[in-house]
């Protein structure tokens, strides 16, 4: 136990050093100290703009005290599962968190209160601009310099369990469909109209 604590503390120290040296935060340098859950079950489909999602987060109580001393803000994100990243380079996972595109949608951001040991929760509606894909929820803890220092997620380290789906809005409306159809028909009809007028004018000038 103590050994694990020392290991964790040294990892933390090392990662802080890494950040100070290069200014780049690597995901593999972050410890998984937060426990995060989300309401959707494995394989459940949520409708964007309609269904609600509840997320809870808190510090892993089995860790030694003082681990969360630098945490100032917690941000919870909706992140793409590997299956939704296939052949979609704009959603790639990279080690450098500044360039990482895995987590593109913020669910909620809250200040961190280390003295409150209770698990925090938030319930919100899935935003209407969330695309159709498979997701999990990840929380990042930020220090006062707004640099990531820890994380927690609802799925395992290989991102294979507890994944859920979101069904996006289509963006279409009946009024748009009707307008498209009407304008399209108008273009064709006006072309035919022009031809008819041209032919009639041709006949008139011939008769003169």
């Amino acid at each position: 136990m103590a050994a694990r604590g020392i290991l964790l503390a040294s990892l933390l120290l090392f990662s802080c050093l890494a950040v100070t040296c290069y200014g780049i935060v690597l995901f593999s340098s972050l410890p998984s100290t937060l426990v995060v859950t989300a309401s959707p079950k494995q394989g459940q489909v949520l409708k964007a703009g309609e269904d609600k999602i509840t997320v809870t987060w808190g510090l892993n109580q089995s860790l030694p005290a003082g681990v969360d001393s630098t945490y100032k803000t917690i941000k919870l994100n909706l992140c793409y599962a590997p299956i939704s990243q296939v052949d979609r380079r704009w959603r790639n996972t990279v080690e450098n968190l500044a360039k990482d595109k895995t987590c593109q949608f913020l669910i909620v951001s809250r200040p961190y209160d280390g003295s409150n040991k209770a698990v925090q929760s938030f319930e919100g509606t899935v935003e209407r601009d969330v695309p159709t894909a498979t997701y999990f929820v990840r929380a990042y803890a930020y220090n006062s310099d707004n640099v990531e220092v820890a994380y927690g997620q609802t799925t395992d380290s290989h991102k294979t369990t507890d994944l859920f789906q979101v069904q996006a809005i289509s963006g279409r409306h009946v009024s748009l469909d009707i307008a498209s159809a009407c304008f399209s028909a108008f273009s064709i009809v006006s072309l035919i109209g022009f031809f008819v007028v041209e032919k009639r004018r041709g006949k008139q000038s011939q008769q003169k």
Partner: protein
Amino acid sequence: MESPPPKFALPVDSEHKATEFRLFSVAAPHMRAFHLSWVSFFACFVSSFAAAPLVPIIRDNLNLTSTDIGNAGIASVSGAVFARVAMGSACDLFGPRLASASLILLTAPAVFCSSISSSPTSFLLVRFFTGFSLATFVSTQFWMSSMFSAPVVGTANGVAGGWGNLGGGATQLIMPLVFGVIRDIGVVKFTAWRIAFFIPALFQTLSAFAVLIFGQDMPDGNFHGLKKSGEKAKDKFSWVFYYGFTNYRGWILALTYGYCFGVELAVDNIIAEYFYDRFNLNLSTAGIIAASFGLANLFSRPGGGILSDIVAKRFGMRGRLWTLWAVQTLGGVFCIILGQVGSLSGSIIVMIAFSVFVQAACGLTFGVVPFVSRRSLGVVSGMTGGGGNVGAVVTQLIFFRGSKYSKQTGITLMGIMIICCTLPLFLIYFPQWGGMFCGPSKKANATEEEYYLSEWKSNEKEKGFHLASLKFSENSVSERGGKVDSVTRPSDETSPAHV
């Protein structure tokens, strides 16, 4: 008995084609035709590439993969391959006014229906059908070649083509702007992009109306009227096609055009992503750089056309060919360098040099095309234009699809291919003017008249169908170079009324 010769605002030659190009005039019929043709072509370019800057939104709405996006990009330029050849024939038979306006109004529904696409397949289909409208390039060049005489035809073609191509760059600025305004009103982004597409669609439709109402096929009137009065013979499609298709110069120009214009289209589709990935720029910065590639068309393609005409004054057709080869090869060299440069500022400078040379080569190509055939001008323009699109399809398929080559390697290899595919220009030879390595033939029948009248059969000549070609051959003697002023002017013209 005979109606008095019409007075034109610009000085004209014996075919009533303008011998001067006055950019800021809208005088009918010459300059009005110019402005109508470049604006309608610009509208088609805006529509065809309207999806490109909005892909980051569309790909999430329609759940597209990189392969879907690549395929849609290829589809957007492949439709026009055959449409351009067909448009060439349509111009020869029906006139550029009806041919272009019909195509624009027939493809407008595809742009309107982009708003209701809901899957990768429907997205690919709307981009494919919208891309057909790029065939208006051929009607633009045909119309300019019908309205402007040999000394200025390169300039007219270059400015009209270049300012139309500008649409590909302008759309990268227009569409995000329109999308932003609609989204800021409060519309959710998956609906905002759909509404935004109505703008290019309406612009396209209105430009077609303008062409139909204000346009005129030839300086003397429309094809329909001229055919009825007997001044323009109703031509046979099969012969028009035959004389165009069997002219080897048309095929060589189709190949080389694929490696200036085709390369330009391919780069339009990949350059934003290239800068975004290689230099880690954000999407709007990458988009501005992408736009500047297309916006160089404002002066570079017209510059090519003007250069072609300037060189022809002194060196004739041989000068036009040499300049085309030199400029396009330099474009290839800059392309190779672009793939190798590793710094952002260096890349931008090289990219701009590359865009100027490659677009000037497009303008220079259409300084040569009007002289390849007179009877089948439309078919040759169509073949060359279609060849441009084939180059775009082939280049994207070989170098920019899948992960075989990194983008920088693809760009370097594309540069090498440009240089190789420009070499066939050496094979072009006109008996009356020569080629790049050979001077004009010493034979007695190596004349402009012989060249252009060989496209008509003797029974057609008996009926007098060839008279327009005869006039053109007289006017094209200027392509011999050496400051020969051969442009024939109407003899009864005392003082043309200038604007």
